[in-house]
């Protein structure tokens, strides 16, 4: 070949070569910081260097302190949000996969658009709605002379925020999961005398499981690590774990403690994601035509 060396490099392994830029970037921008947080979690409290004698002191103190409360709240709020999201999104996803036909594209666009507006602004919209003398309270007072103050800064308002912000992350995996169920199988089940409920329970639900799992786990992890929802809509009602992590790093200036809490949160999400990815073929889901 006239171009010699260079072209033989290209020919050997274009895939591996193409993977280099993004991999190197994520090694520096993601793996590095992650390793550092894990490192700091073993350092003595209130230190700012990785060169001390490692110890498990922080892990012990976090377990002994009352951090389990914020972990509990995060787990509880995230699970509640996931269940509600599934119930809200399933009928809609079914419609998008099987009923709407060409209109499904419009629905998709309408759901993606709000994602591109800062989460803060959209949550602030809810503040304006739920506020005392806000849109809901004000309209009710004006129209029916009934008051609905005290809705903001409560636990349900945080769940509302989580459901609102993470809805697309449940919906789209569900759509792709449901559209993977072949109509012919449903017809076959129906010909063999299965009831509508049996078809749903025995055919549709198991076959759309990959989508349901991705949606559920994605929204669970996102809710678990969320910060803005609890702060903007929850006020002082509940402290979620991301909030504790933030204050450990900033106000308390205790990097090792913040690191331990981060490692525990990451560990929890990481285990879930790992279990998910082991059972799922990404080529099939993303590349499905």
């Amino acid at each position, binding site marked *: 070949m006239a171009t010699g060396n260079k072209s033989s490099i290209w020919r050997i392994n274009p895939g591996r070569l193409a993977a280099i830029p993004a991999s190197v970037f994520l090694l520096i921008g993601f793996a590095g*910081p992650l390793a550092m947080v894990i490192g700091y979690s073993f350092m003595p409290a209130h230190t700012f260097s990785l060169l001390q004698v490692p110890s498990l002191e922080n892990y012990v103190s976090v377990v002994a302190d009352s951090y389990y409360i914020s972990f509990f709240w995060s787990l509880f709020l995230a699970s509640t949000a996931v269940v509600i999201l599934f119930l809200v999104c399933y009928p809609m996803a079914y419609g998008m996969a099987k*009923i709407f036909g060409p209109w499904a594209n419009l629905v998709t666009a309408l759901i993606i658009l709000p994602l591109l507006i800062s989460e803060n*602004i959209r949550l602030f919209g809810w503040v304006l709605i739920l506020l005392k003398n806000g849109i809901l309270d004000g309209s009710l007072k004006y129209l029916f002379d009934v008051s609905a103050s005290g809705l903001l800064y409560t636990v349900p308002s945080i769940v509302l925020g989580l459901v609102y912000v993470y809805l697309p992350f449940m919906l789209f995996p569900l759509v792709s999961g449901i559209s993977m169920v072949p109509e012919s199988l449903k017809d076959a089940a129906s010909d063999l005398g299965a009831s509508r409920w049996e078809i749903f329970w025995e055919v549709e639900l198991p076959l759309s499981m990959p989508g349901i799992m991705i949606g559920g786990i994605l929204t669970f992890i996102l809710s678990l690590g969320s910060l803005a929802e609890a702060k*903007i809509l929850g006020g002082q009602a509940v402290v979620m774990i991301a909030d504790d992590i933030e204050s450990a790093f900033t106000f308390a200036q205790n990097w090792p403690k913040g690191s331990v809490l981060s490692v525990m949160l990451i560990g929890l999400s990481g285990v879930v994601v790992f279990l998910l990815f082991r059972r799922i073929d*990404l080529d099939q889901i993303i590349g499905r035509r």
Partner: protein
Amino acid sequence: MNEQRKRRLARNLIVIWTTCVIGFLYIPMVAVVLASFSKQRYFQFPIAAWTMRWYEKASTSLSVRDLLWTSLTVALLVTIFSVILAFFGALAFARYEWSGRKLYQRLVLLPIFFPQAVLGLALLLWFSSLGIIPSWQTAVFAHMVWIVPIVILIISIQVYSFDPALEEAAFDLGATRLQVLREITLPILSPGIVSGGLFAFLLSWGNFPLSMFTTGADQTVPEWLYAKMVSGYTPMVPTLGSLTMGSAAIMLLVGYFGWLAIRYKTAQIKVKSAD
């Protein structure tokens, strides 16, 4: 008959439900726009008096200009760098068969699943131990850690539907690597690249959790909005909120028509290659 009626009822219920959910997604944004026209300093509904005063104030304010400028610079740089990295990343993700591909697919998507606030703090820790003072430049880097994987995913979807035979045909006809990249691969993947770039821009423009910890003394629009929301209401919050929503909408329209134009062009290329 009964069966058919039941089916139609279910269909109608799903349509109504979907409409309600979409309404639910847009109601808060309408609320923000409404509030930006309210004259009172503290928001009250029904709105008693309307005004454009807050928009006039925003247009002359120097600090608003700084905020918009910082957000815009960050988002533009993030878009450019992310698209370049993600273009090659997506080829490795979906185009070529190579031994480490399955592992690479999983690892490269991990940052999307990562809690952003924790990622922001980890990056802050990382920068300060490396002796880098956080500023808007570090925020560009931080945004990319989260956005590059997303753009890889978006471009990959396009790559999956790309027929490698077109590239091979060009090679057989004697084209060089660079020519194939420029004449075949790039034009055909361009819809994915444009939508990836658009997502990169808008996700960076609206990002809060990563900016919060990595911009140092600089401030982006979402950070400013958050600071004002927490410390007390000011009418500038809904005003600036509405302005950013409006500019995002304009961006999307421009992007959409750009995408239409490109699709038209690639359709022509496909027709030519089919001849």
